[in-house]
């Protein structure tokens, strides 16, 4: 794995240190900067504002042995189905309107995926610790629960103050790379969300050695309320414009979830023969081909 280097300097990666930062890239160029065995954080939540065009670019690449940290939706489902994810770090895997992510469910029941199962708040805390470059942050969530039993590496810590309370020492979830999807971005790497929830995309970016942003539209200048300007260019290594790039997850206000297509995805995932057909129709192609196929 690459060493953790502050800022943008990523050594040993083709197109990494040599490439001027802030350059707008293609999804395939972004994925070319990823490596086997990396821990990759993916923003969004469930089936909401997921960087699906970047996930699809990973599907086309020979990457393997990935650890995926995510509030998991079809991003994780697809990377589990492709066999490229070896481990998933999450508190759930859901399509929201369909409660269980079908590919994740199948892989768990077949024993083909490793899981670090965390409480949703622990995942947040792990990202916050990593973003703040802390080894851990204390949290109550997890105490007494099976989470500490299925993750025997987790430790507790005792408050040094008079309360002497025992708390979970949630370790930093350091990421080699983060992938997030924004409604708007500029070529310098500033990113803007326009929907109701930023989720944890800013933390994913700060927890990562390098963060990549796909967006619905690259604009010369970001406009709108200052609170929507979630990412600044110090947090971001590369940007790409991928219209409809969160499909089939929601990306409001640009578009909602494609519920009909999501049902089709879920039905296909339930049956190996159907999945093969689905894969041939939608995934054995580039992003332009995918977008044509789903129109």
């Amino acid at each position: 794995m690459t060493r953790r280097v502050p800022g943008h300097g990523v050594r040993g990666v083709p197109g990494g240190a040599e490439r001027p930062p802030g350059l707008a890239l293609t999804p395939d160029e972004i994925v070319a900067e990823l490596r086997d065995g990396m821990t990759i954080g993916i923003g969004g939540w469930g089936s909401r504002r997921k960087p699906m065009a970047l996930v699809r670019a990973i599907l086309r690449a020979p990457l393997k042995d990935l650890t995926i940290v995510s509030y998991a939706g079809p991003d994780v489902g697809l990377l589990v189905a492709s066999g490229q994810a070896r481990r998933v770090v999450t508190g759930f895997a859901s399509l929201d309107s369909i409660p269980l992510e079908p590919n994740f469910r199948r892989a768990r029941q077949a024993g083909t995926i490793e899981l670090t199962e965390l409480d949703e708040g622990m995942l947040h805390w792990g990202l916050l610790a990593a973003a703040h470059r802390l080894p851990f942050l204390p949290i109550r969530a997890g105490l007494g629960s099976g989470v500490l039993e299925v993750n025997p590496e987790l430790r507790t810590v005792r408050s040094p103050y008079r309360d002497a309370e025992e708390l979970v020492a949630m370790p930093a979830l350091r990421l080699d790379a983060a992938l997030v999807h924004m409604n708007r971005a500029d070529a310098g790497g500033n990113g803007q969300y326009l929907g109701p929830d930023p989720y944890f995309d800013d933390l994913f970016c700060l927890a990562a050695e390098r963060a990549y942003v796909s967006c619905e539209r690259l604009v010369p200048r970001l406009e709108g309320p200052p609170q929507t300007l979630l990412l600044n260019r110090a947090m971001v290594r590369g940007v790409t414009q991928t219209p409809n790039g969160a499909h089939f997850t929601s990306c409001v206000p640009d578009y909602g979830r494609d519920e009909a297509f999501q049902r089709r995805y879920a039905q296909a995932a339930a049956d190996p023969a159907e999945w093969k057909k689905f894969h041939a129709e939608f995934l054995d192609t580039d992003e332009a081909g995918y977008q044509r196929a789903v129109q």
Partner: protein
Amino acid sequence: MSGPVSEPTRAEVCVVACAEAWRGDGAILASPMGLIPALGARLARLTFAPDLLLTDGEAYLVDEDGRVEGWLPYAKVFTMLAAGRRHVMMGAAQIDRSGNQNISAIGDWRRPKAQLLGVRGAPGNTVNHPVSYWVPRHSPRVFTPGVDMVCGVGYDRGAYELRVVVTNLAVLDFGTPERVMRLRSVHPGVEVADVLAATGFPLAVPDQVPVTRAPTAAELDLIRTRLDPEGARDRELT
């Protein structure tokens, strides 16, 4: 409505029993999981618990007419949760007599027979703020001597407060000296023996088991004409 009000259905009794879980909570975030708990929370807000905060399921706090009154993205939900200003009613694939709950996976966790939701926020919820449960099909498969993966922690593992467990048959609580599950009331038409037969562990049963209170005429009217005019509530019990 004109004409005589028909008898409350089981689903309507359950809506009111769920609403009762939030009585006296004041201005805290009510987070119901499932339709009947959601109807219950909204009914509580419209009647005896007007200070409750409710979300639209995304990132907005909304009033009883769905108008936005606040913003609560996930990061802020987590903070409200950790601050203890929340009372969630979750589901349970398994729950034991101390209130340990499982929504993650059935069977051996390493390779489950059935992968379910995952632990979600259950570990954090149960050590930070009041938690209630809703079980639409009370059976020995749900009320088990032990659970396969402890998601929500029970009283024997440090739960903050487990308020009630509402099912299609009864209301249960943990009002015993050992904080184990007790039958608080049976719904109209349900016998104590029905509940015992549907529970896979010994249940504490008081000498006199009351009947769950019936909805008032005003509550029935709200449920039927305002909260769920399509009658979706019945489908959650079948």
